[in-house]
């Protein structure tokens, strides 16, 4: 019984021996910690939020005008 279990385990290891550990499906879905942002990066992301909101509104307005 123990031999069968060891063989099964060995086969399993052989099967995935060509993968890096973090390539396994279970590892790939493990959560990662949040990135620590520098002030400049945080400011850039805020500027991006504003730009996306303004330009996105322009596009929506343009689309509505073109339908109208």
């Amino acid at each position, binding site marked *: 019984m123990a031999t069968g279990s060891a063989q099964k385990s060995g086969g*399993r*290891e052989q*099967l*995935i*021996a*060509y*993968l*890096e*550990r*973090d*390539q*396994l*499906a*279970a*590892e*790939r*879905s493990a*959560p*990662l*910690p*949040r*990135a620590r*942002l520098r002030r400049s*990066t945080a400011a*850039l*992301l805020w500027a*991006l939020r504003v*730009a*996306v909101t303004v*330009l*996105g509104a*322009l*596009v929506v*307005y*343009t*689309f509505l*005008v*073109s*339908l109208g």
Partner: protein
Amino acid sequence: MSPPPPPPPLGGELGGAVALPLPPLTREDRLRSRDRERVHRARNGHRRLHLLWLLIGPGILVMLGENDGPSMLSYATTGATYGIGFFVPFILLTFAMAYVCQEMAMRVGAVTHRGYGQLVLQRYGRSWGWLAAIDLLFTNLVTLIAELVAIRVGVAYFLGGGTLSAQLSALIGVALVLLTLSLGRYWRWERMVLALAVLNCLFVPVAILTHPHWGAAAHALATLSPFPHGSINTLLLLIASTIGATVTPWMVFFQQSASADKGLTPHDVRHGRYDTLAGALLAAIFGIAALIGGAALFSHGGGSISGFLGAAFPQAIGARAGQVAGALFALGLIEAGAVALLAISASTGYALGECVGAGNSFNSHPRHAALFYGANIAVAVVAAAVIMIPGAPLLSIALNANVLATVLLPVTLIFVILLASDRELMGRHANTRARNLTAGLIVALVSAAGAAYAIDSFLLSTHLIGG
């Protein structure tokens, strides 16, 4: 032949030497392991060409996928309107910029083994992750509609316009998605789509059959001239829209996720670069061929070809350069639309699966990755349904979706740079300062062009400026 040396210890670069208990194995792990075993054997056997063959895929697919139906029609229209001149080197330049952005996506996928959506969501918060995914879902849906319309333009060359062409195009699109998804693993999906993508070269014989002035093309390539004449606003809009569409959000999502799904590792980054570079070069050559093919109509009223997405183009090229050229152009459009359809629907599946945290691999059984497979199919089915609605405002939807994609593009590109520069994730594979500077300049240019395109479209549609 001697057996290959034993494989590297499980854990690779990031796992270290500590023996941790193995997590439960899935079908996805087993299939990916088989693919990696072949890579390992080729690498240790010093079979360089075989290794290259095994590792190419996502880069060529993403670049030829970007040479989609609407893009090829757009290149041909540009050639017909402005001639060869400035736009031959310009296309080359845009693909050089695309290479820089896509190389980062490939590298992040190979090093972290995770998709773009998942990394943005986990590292920078749910709001950015979901914004990227929802933006992608919407723009992909509309792009797929445009792809099916391009397929319809190609089909109509052989069957004539009308509902039959629309129905057949919709059927071709959905059937291709179902067929490729039924192949059961990433490797087969990739090879089948690659085989289809190679047919993007059909635009080369079209260019040859139009008997272009090769000396003028070489002169244009060397001198970026002659600069086209015409309305400066229309020209700026064209340049801004082309630069703004150099990289689209789906390309970043697709290449990073496909690189991870294929099982690329940090050892494969060099080959990933060859793959991406080869894709960029091929896409530039085929795009230039479409431009040259269209330019045959330059002095024959080609600029006046109208209709949604240049529906009369294959017929016009057929009349100018012979029926074979027209038929090849039409077949090229069907191919370009089909490859983009497959890659874009895959990127939708990857993005939704990553953001929800569900299975998102072609190596997974549909039972364990229902959202991935479902999104892949659903987005194609919805796009197919839309093109069959009589009187749907397809032109307005396509144009505004294109603008929205370019407006949101900076978000995608900035996060790619942040991820590729993240030393916690990337270790020694993180962007160098020089690479960050180059990528930053390209992103600034692409973002400025995208913003200019959006603002110009707004001003034009509200009649605040003339066309």
